[in-house]
């Protein structure tokens, strides 16, 4: 008898194994419950993409962007506003995974791990969410962007982190989502991506900000130097070309006129290591987090590049890729003396949603991207470019520091279309806005494409802030 009892110790092993499994189950449930709930088949939140009990989504001024009326999800009355904010708000299909309605569906529907989903009707209330975006600004940006195949425009307050404008094209009307079939697939390519967060483009000349930063920090006599640009120069067995022959220029002039020859020479002089180091410090290869969504990583690495490629990389060609939100954050960092305030899009929510999300209501400080003194110098360069090359009147009286760029998407054919860019920020006290705008599918330059889109958005955003 004793022997049998002594052998029964293994019962505790079985029980401990069971309790271990149970602990694991509890752990998994606690941490994944909101993901588990957000399933299209979930009967408790079925119909209207599961949004039939979801709360209101409003913009910064309280304009209703989406709400549920009689179990139907209703979006903004203006079709342009609907399309402009499609990628921020989302639609009933939940295909845009970074949109608020997809990301926070369970919170919008009032889900919490403790209370579950199906409270009695009189208690059932979706949580409302207030966003930082300005519907009017987004609409302005959308009207500019809608003529292009693909593009993105983001404007945010670099002091507080509030995103005022986040528009991506292609877009569609959430009231009538397209049926995407094999035939029309190409027409809707990338339509579910918010290009502001989830796409990258070739930077072109806006990357000269990075090259300039590397030069300012590593070449002591950079401000005294001059270069001669004859329109093209052979570096590493291939020509680096400029649009015009810029003649003799100093750094400021080279930056303003966007002289490729000068920045190509600088990249070669600095060398791959210094270029990589500066790009890394400025967050080119990093992801940024915007209200729980991670941006797509940019790309810069010239470790294995030859001399010609290194030269091209200095003017944002080679295989460089950057993300619009990332560039806006970089501009915000320069405006803030080197350290950005992280942008965010949800400014408030009813109930305890914010607590559930673990988000604070203000933007938090990010890591330093640029040294303070370098940031000041870059700011001067960007200001010079606006005053002398784009014209200070462009932004309707706002004091703007900016850089345009035209990234060539090098496929090697005549049909090559460019990525036109404009990024920058305003220094006005009452309109601290950093912005980035990119459009694809143009054979024109960044100034006349992205520049025209973003100026309207920035002016409108400043108006909204000053209201």
């Amino acid at each position, binding site marked *: *008898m*004793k*022997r*049998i*009892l*002594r*052998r*029964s110790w*293994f*019962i*505790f092993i*079985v*029980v401990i194994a*069971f*309790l271990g*499994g*149970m602990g*694991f*189950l*509890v752990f*998994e*449930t606690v941490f*994944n*419950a*909101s993901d*588990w*709930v957000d*399933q299209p*088949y*979930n*009967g*408790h939140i079925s119909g209207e993409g599961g949004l039939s009990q979801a709360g209101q989504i409003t913009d910064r001024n309280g304009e209703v962007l989406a709400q549920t009326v009689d179990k139907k999800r209703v979006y903004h009355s203006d079709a342009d506003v609907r399309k402009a904010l499609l990628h921020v708000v989302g639609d009933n299909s939940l295909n845009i995974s970074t949109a608020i309605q997809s990301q926070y569906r369970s919170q919008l529907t009032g*889900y*919490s*791990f*403790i*209370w*579950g*989903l*199906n*409270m*009695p*009707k*009189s*208690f059932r209330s979706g949580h409302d969410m207030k966003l930082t975006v300005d519907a009017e600004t987004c609409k302005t940006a959308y009207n500019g962007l809608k003529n292009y195949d693909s593009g993105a425009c983001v404007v945010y307050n670099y002091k507080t982190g509030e995103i005022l404008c986040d528009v991506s094209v292609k877009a569609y009307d959430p009231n009538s989502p397209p049926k995407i079939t094999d035939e029309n697939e190409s027409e809707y390519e990338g339509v579910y991506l918010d290009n502001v967060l989830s796409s990258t483009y070739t930077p072109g000349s806006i990357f000269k900000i990075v090259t300039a930063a590397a030069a300012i920090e590593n070449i002591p006599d950079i401000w005294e130097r001059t270069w001669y640009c004859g329109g093209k120069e052979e570096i590493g067995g291939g020509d680096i070309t400029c649009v015009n022959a810029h003649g003799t220029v100093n750094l400021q002039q080279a930056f303003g006129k966007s002289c490729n020859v000068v920045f190509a020479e600088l990249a070669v002089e600095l060398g791959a290591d210094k270029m990589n180091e500066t790009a890394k410090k400025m967050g080119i290869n990093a992801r940024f987090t915007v209200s729980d969504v991670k941006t797509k990583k940019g790309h810069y690495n010239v470790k294995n590049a030859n001399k010609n490629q290194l030269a091209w990389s200095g003017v944002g060609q080679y295989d460089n890729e950057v993300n619009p939100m990332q560039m806006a954050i970089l501009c915000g960092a320069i405006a803030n003396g080197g350290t950005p305030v992280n942008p965010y899009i949800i400014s408030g929510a009813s109930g305890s949603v914010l607590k559930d999300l673990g988000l604070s209501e203000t933007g938090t400080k990010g890591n330093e991207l640029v040294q303070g003194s370098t940031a000041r110098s870059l700011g001067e360069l960007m200001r010079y470019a606006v005053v002398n090359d784009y014209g200070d009147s462009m932004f309707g009286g706002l004091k703007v520091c900016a850089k345009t760029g035209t990234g060539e998407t090098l496929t090697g054919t005549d049909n090559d279309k460019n990525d036109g860019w404009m990024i920058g920020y305003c220094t006005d006290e009452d309109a601290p806005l950093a912005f980035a705008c990119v459009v694809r599918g143009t054979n024109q330059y960044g100034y006349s494409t992205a520049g025209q889109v973003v100026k309207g958005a920035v002016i409108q955003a400043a108006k909204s802030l000053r209201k």
Partner: protein
Amino acid sequence: MTAVMDIAVVALRMLMPLYTIIIVYQIYASMRRRRRHERPLVLLQNLDTGVKTPVLFWENSIGRNRRSDIAVDDPAVSRNHCVLLRRKEGWFLSDTGSKTGTYINGKRIGASRARLMIDDVITLGNSEYAFRRGEEYHEELQSSWFFSKVVDKPATKPYKIMLLVSLFHIFMTVEAMYCDGAENFDPATLCAVLLGVEWLFFFISTVVLHRVAFELESLCLFLTGIGVMLLARQNIRSAYVQLIAAVIGMAVFCALVKFIENPDRIGQWKLIIMIAAVGLLAVNLVFGRVTNGANNWIQLGSITVQPSEFVKIAFIFVGASTLDRLMTRQNLLEYIIFSAICVGALALMGDFGTALIFFAAFLLISFTRSGDIKTVILALAGAGFAGVLVLNLKPYVLRRFETWRHVWEHTQDSGGYQQVRAMTYIASGGLFGVGVGNGCLKYVAASESDLVFALMSEEMGFIVAVTIAVAVATLFIYARSVATRARSTFYSISALCAAGMLVVQMALNVFGATDILPLTGVTFPFISAGGSSIISCWGLLAFIKAADERTYSKRVKG
């Protein structure tokens, strides 16, 4: 008005988890109470030294082996010399193949049991012992925690626990009646029948059979009732079928408890039981019906039966044994062959969940009997090989392994369809549940059996579901505790094995539905819908009940 109703409904839902915990605690707490003091039943006094050795168990091995219940330090005594047993009729001594023989009052005894009277003298090798009454032992004994400090607290009266359980089922009924805003009085009728069954069983047990304890039955009635009431708003007909099966199960429970009252009689039945079990599996293999890739059902008229469920009971009969038989026949071969046939037949049917339960039970029994860890490792290795073979032969099992831990990539195909829904609805239920009948998982196939843990969690809340699972697991610890006081090793082994089967089955059910283990489609004991399953669960419970020493002792009036 609706607001008041809603507040009441929500308050009730929040009350349920706390209530579940109270019930489970009360049941286990009173299992520990109202037990006799640990004291020696009899004692053996060495006539040379005068040292008194207490005899604590109903079955005791005596020998030179230090691990014997009564160790005798005498080179002339065999390692396993003889066995001292208590039966209703009195005390017996039987020789288990000793070299020097066992003598009572100078008369040599054999393997058959010889009657032993108080003050008889037992001679083993060069040692002589007088057989004395237990009252003559005055030293303190060490008790295990389960039996220590139990004296002061009075047990909760069995009828009070039953009232708690019944009220719980009434609460579930109220929820089921008013779910989805639509009133439906079907659950009320069902509940009335359920309560009738519960109290009739209680009446039979306490008044007719004079049993002292009813906690184990209360726990299982509690679980059975939850299973029945969960079905009320899903399929009222299957709720009644389940209840009828439960009644049959309770009858089987009573019959089995009676049948194994005399553990010595089982030896004679063993062969018949084995043949019947193998026959049942053979019939299943020949006439079985294939459902979900597993051929484990047979159709009898309008009802379907799962024979493998009943073989579980036979499995324990064959595995457990009384101590004197264990000592004389240490050979496990007969049992190993029987186990191999059972597990093999189940594998052929494609019922790998049940095969796994049998295998776990086999490991439990063979280790308890032999204490040989090598056997266990060997068996595990063999099972591993068999498992690989199975994966090669049965592609649909392989598929379950392929999707295991990847079910979210298979939300719309059979690889993960059930599991992801189980998890989604567990999460949707939150800690307090959406209320009985309000769930959505009930529309998913097999939710009332394979996924019942999730169903329970969705409708009654995560806290209730986890508490119930832990309550079933605690059955194992309870079985071990009562096994230390059981009247025969037959009861100890069978109680451990029965509890082990129930716990392993429950673990496979819970962890299978939540993708912590591959989904094997076994039932949650007592709660899952399934007639054969609930009958066999009540049958297995009989072994745990029988191990409790109070079961066969009649209540003394007054």
